[in-house]
């Protein structure tokens, strides 16, 4: 019996779309060539958060424990257990997704899916058996993979992507990270915390170039204070991997004499590229090679839909799931008009954490908006001081005319948790009055949001 829907790819777009369709009473199959959960659960968001938790504990024990009154000798760690714990978390969640497939009566097909046209999907089974399945609709959610630099191809040991970086058997004594986006910043922080000598190279003039400039600057100050070497505004132009190490030629992007950066391992984190499934030669692509979709997430081939990283940036799990739900509801819920993403939070889980939603101050300037900024440092937050995390600040940007919250930018402890309130405020089109009339519990870090909000209009109490 043909399926109502076959989903190719079991990541945050694919598995969420499959479950949503099953909830709507559809007969669904999900084809996945690696593991359910996709990059996010297996090779991205989740395992790296496990690693960074290790780093956080280690940093506390090494740098702060004495101040908190703990003393011990010979602080040490077992690298293999650090890695193993991260893998275990992934395994557990991946099997959780498999359980959800079962619970929702979704056929989970292990193999590589190919579009054969006419509603048919060929599957090259992981068990060696090939099969052809048929469905009235197909959702392509095959995602992306790390992009390599032409002169510096991945070799899995010395030149690696994030995927290898989270399972290195031996901790390298030095590492160079190319690209200071979220992935680059997180791994730089993780390895540096465990004592690897880290150099970060970023072509643009700052860390986390998508974030507000002030946030990037604060993060750079923090990283540098801890001894990381940052080469922002630098371009890697050549590489020599013939010896035991990686030697990179690095030039200032603005022109100037080149220098050589040498390290045991080079992590290339310069972005991702789409994984087009077989048979997508007939599909229209965007100018950057992603699947082109219409307002209802349909590709140029009727009946074939796409969601998640495969339709282009931002490459975020929560965006992928949102897109999949809207695609599926558009297909099966009568009268549903699918939405495209508008505002979405962006989070980087390095230390200090960075999170944001809405417009940066630069964007407000470029758009010619009349805005006002309110900032509050965690240094002045009772809870942050009590927790020993006085680093960072909250920066809120409001439109002057109606006090509409336009953007929120947080750097500091728990920033990635604090941003949720800001996302809701922006989605609800809240103004500073709603934020200020909301009582924020004392003592919490969230008070900093309240204070930043009052500061925007010159009424902060604790500044």
């Amino acid at each position, binding site marked *: 019996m043909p399926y109502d829907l076959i989903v190719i790819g079991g990541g945050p777009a694919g598995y969420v779309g499959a479950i949503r369709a099953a909830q709507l009473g559809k007969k669904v199959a999900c084809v996945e060539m690696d593991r359910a959960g996709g990059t996010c659960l297996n090779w991205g968001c989740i395992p790296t958060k496990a690693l960074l938790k290790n780093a956080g504990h280690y940093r506390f024990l090494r740098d702060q424990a004495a101040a908190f009154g703990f003393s011990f000798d010979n602080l040490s760690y077992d690298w293999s257990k650090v890695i193993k714990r991260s893998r275990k978390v992934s395994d557990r969640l991946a099997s959780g997704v498999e359980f959800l497939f079962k619970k929702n009566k979704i056929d989970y097909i292990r193999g590589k899916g190919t579009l054969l046209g006419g509603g048919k999907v060929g599957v090259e089974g992981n068990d060696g058996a090939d099969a052809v399945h048929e469905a009235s609709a197909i959702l392509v959610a095959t995602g992306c993979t790390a*992009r390599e630099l032409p002169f510096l191809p991945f070799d899995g040991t010395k030149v690696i992507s994030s995927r290898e970086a989270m399972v290195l058997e031996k901790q390298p004594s030095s590492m160079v990270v190319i*690209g200071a*986006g*979220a992935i680059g910043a997180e791994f730089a922080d993780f390895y540096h915390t465990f004592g690897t000598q880290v150099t970060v190279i970023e*072509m*643009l003039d700052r860390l986390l*170039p*998508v974030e507000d400039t002030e946030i990037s600057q604060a993060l750079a100050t923090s990283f540098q204070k801890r001894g990381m070497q940052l080469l922002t505004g630098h371009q890697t132009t050549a590489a020599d991997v013939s010896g035991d190490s990686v030697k990179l030629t690095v030039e200032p992007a603005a022109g100037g004499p080149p220098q050589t950066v040498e390290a045991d391992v080079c992590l290339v984190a*310069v*972005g991702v*590229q789409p994984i087009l499934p077989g048979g997508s030669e007939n599909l229209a692509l965007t*100018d*950057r090679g992603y699947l082109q979709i*219409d*307002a*209802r997430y349909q590709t140029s081939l009727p009946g074939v839909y796409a969601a998640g990283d495969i339709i*282009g*940036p*931002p490459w975020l799990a929560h965006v992928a799931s949102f897109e999949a739900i809207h695609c599926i509801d558009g297909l099966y819920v*009568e*009268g549903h*008009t699918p939405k495209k993403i508008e505002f979405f939070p962006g989070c980087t889980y390095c230390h200090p954490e960075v999170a944001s939603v809405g417009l940066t101050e630069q964007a407000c300037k*470029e*758009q*010619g908006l009349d805005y006002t900024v309110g900032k509050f440092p965690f240094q002045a937050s009772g809870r942050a001081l009590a927790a020993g995390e006085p680093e960072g600040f909250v920066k809120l940007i409001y439109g002057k*005319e*109606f*006090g*509409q919250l336009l953007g929120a930018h947080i750097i500091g402890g728990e920033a990635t948790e604090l941003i949720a309130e800001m996302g809701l405020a922006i989605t*609800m*089109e*809240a*103004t500073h*009055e*709603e934020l200020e009339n909301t009582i924020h519990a004392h003592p919490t870090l969230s008070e900093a949001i309240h204070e930043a909000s009052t500061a925007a209009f010159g009424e902060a109490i604790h500044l």
Partner: protein
Amino acid sequence: MPYVQMPKLSDTMTEGTLVKWLKQEGDKVEISEVLAEVETDKATMEMEAFDEGTLKIYTPQGGTVPVGTAIAFIAGDGEEAPAAPEASPPQPAPTAATPSPEPAPQESPFTPAEPAAATTPPPLPAAPTPSVPTSSGGPLRASPVALKLAAAQGVDLSAIAGSGPGGRIVKNDVLAYLAGGAAPAPVAAPAQAPATQATPAPAPVQPAPRTIPAPRQPASSGDQRIPLTGMRATVAERLLASKTQIPHFYLHLEIDAAPLMTLRKQLNTPAEADETGNTNKYTVNDFVLKAAVAAAVAVPEANASFEGDAIVRYASVNLSVAIALEEGLVTPVIRDAQNLNLLQISQQVKDLAAKARNKRLSPDTFSGGTLTTSNLGAYGIESFDAIINPPQAAILSIGAIVKKPVLSADGNVVPGLRMDIGMSCDHRVIDGAIGARYLSELKKILEAPAMMLV
């Protein structure tokens, strides 16, 4: 107000076509459930229920009726729907700018004079006013920003249908309302479809084909007769009026496109995917649009309208961009384009084109344009003249970039890249010298295109 009327969904809309009933006669419907899809002259939109009850349909699927016509009835508990709509004056739709307190008690030519059924219809207010959510009708759902914007602009939120979850009114709804309400449209169009006037049968209103006066030729077999869609009829009406009422004159200027092509190549080659996904491929048209805006800032006399007793010179350049669709032509507007950089213009055009193709442009996207560009370069057209998009005073016609022999500074024949740009002007507003100044400014900008990046 249990009658469901053809809503006024844009300020040029005089009638709408019921593309599809999503609810059937006899269905129970709830407030804000989508009842039907309605095609206006610009887009296909969903129509929601403002009442709950049992649906009675008067206008069949495919029918075209004027704004304000009763197309259905939603009968509450114990209420019975009249078999045919009662004689009722055409109503200002909920989005009309100013609902008059006392609508003229004229009878609609589109609705039968007598209710057909013998049953007494439930007592109806003779002149129902647009549904107003009052204190008894539950809280008004609107975002904080929408509330403040409405208060600042003196807008009555109860006249606005919200697009947010559950009909919540958001900022954009108020902005769309303001854009639409800026030019108050006649509340009810005069009888436009004489055919329906002559059919007083107490039956549901039959679809009335919209007609534009035109000579007819006897049809031979195999000829196709394609009834006008709302969009085609609008194009026909507006362009006929423009070409016959506006004294057009035409200018052309050849532009050296070589520097532009070089710059575009440079901008498009690095295409390094950064994490913002901000890599944009620029089209030639993006540059022309940016230059057209800059030239309009430099020569504000060209960014104007004729208004009968005055010439209005606009403070903002709102650029209408002609986009060809299978079923017609739309000219969505890039608002305040003088504040946008090249990237923003490029992205907005891509966004508008995609939305236009999916028929998802909201009506407010079409209003308020002050200058139009039309580009047929992609089809290889080297030079053409366009018809002005009223009430604007000028339209640019952009041709293809052509490789041709040109004379170099030292008198040699060398290969060059040239592009023709035409300008059609309303002579009541723009004199020849002004048009010429505008075009030469445009040429200057396009031939030194790097200045557009700073």
